[in-house]
């Protein structure tokens, strides 16, 4: 059964600093997603990662995938307050449509 674990679950960081959120999944997966959720809001899709070694970047966020290690990372560069949100990773079972979410990382960027 596919399980997804994220760490840390809570992250408080200073503006301008870099940090990485880790996402491990337990069995093979076809697709790895990263989402952002602001308090009381819906989910915003950030990245879809499909293959080993995939790297995607948008602004100060960069996501990567290592399928051999079953690990994805979301790297934050020079954090700004606007990045404060909860970030979820999610993985889809191989050959299927079922998407399992991690518990989420609540990020707070202090000015």
């Amino acid at each position, binding site marked *: 059964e596919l399980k997804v674990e994220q760490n840390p679950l809570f992250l408080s960081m200073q503006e301008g600093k870099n940090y990485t959120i880790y996402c491990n999944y337990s069995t093979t997966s076809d697709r790895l997603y990263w989402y952002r959720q602001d308090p009381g809001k819906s*989910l915003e*899709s950030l990245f879809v990662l499909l293959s080993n070694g995939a790297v995607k970047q948008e602004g100060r966020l960069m996501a990567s995938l290592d399928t051999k290690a079953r690990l994805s990372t979301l790297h934050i560069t020079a954090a700004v307050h606007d990045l404060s949100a909860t970030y979820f990773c999610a993985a889809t079972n191989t050959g299927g*449509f079922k998407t399992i979410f991690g518990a989420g990382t609540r990020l707070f960027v202090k000015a």
Partner: protein
Amino acid sequence: EPEVTQTPSHQVTQMGQEVILRCVPISNHLYFYWYRQILGQKVEFLVSFYNNEISEKSEIFDDQFSVERPDGSNFTLKIRSTKLEDSAMYFCASTSDQAVRAFFGQGTRLTVV
């Protein structure tokens, strides 16, 4: 930008009553999903729908739940006999292809009393 719309935004219902949550996915999308999120907790997959049928469902999606795409534009989630533990935010999502980003609606907050 096209968006997924959900109605109502908030629904309060008595335990044991039936509710229908409505979603209008983006028009050229082919894959449709329902998720739920109990307040402050993780997002849970309920069901996926493709080619006018359920493609996969979770253990949560038992006989009390059903989905329909009655008219080619709406995508509905029905809960036949609501329980207190069904109280959650329900999100609909759609995508044109599983390899690209999905778009989520703003959610329906369901409160069962």
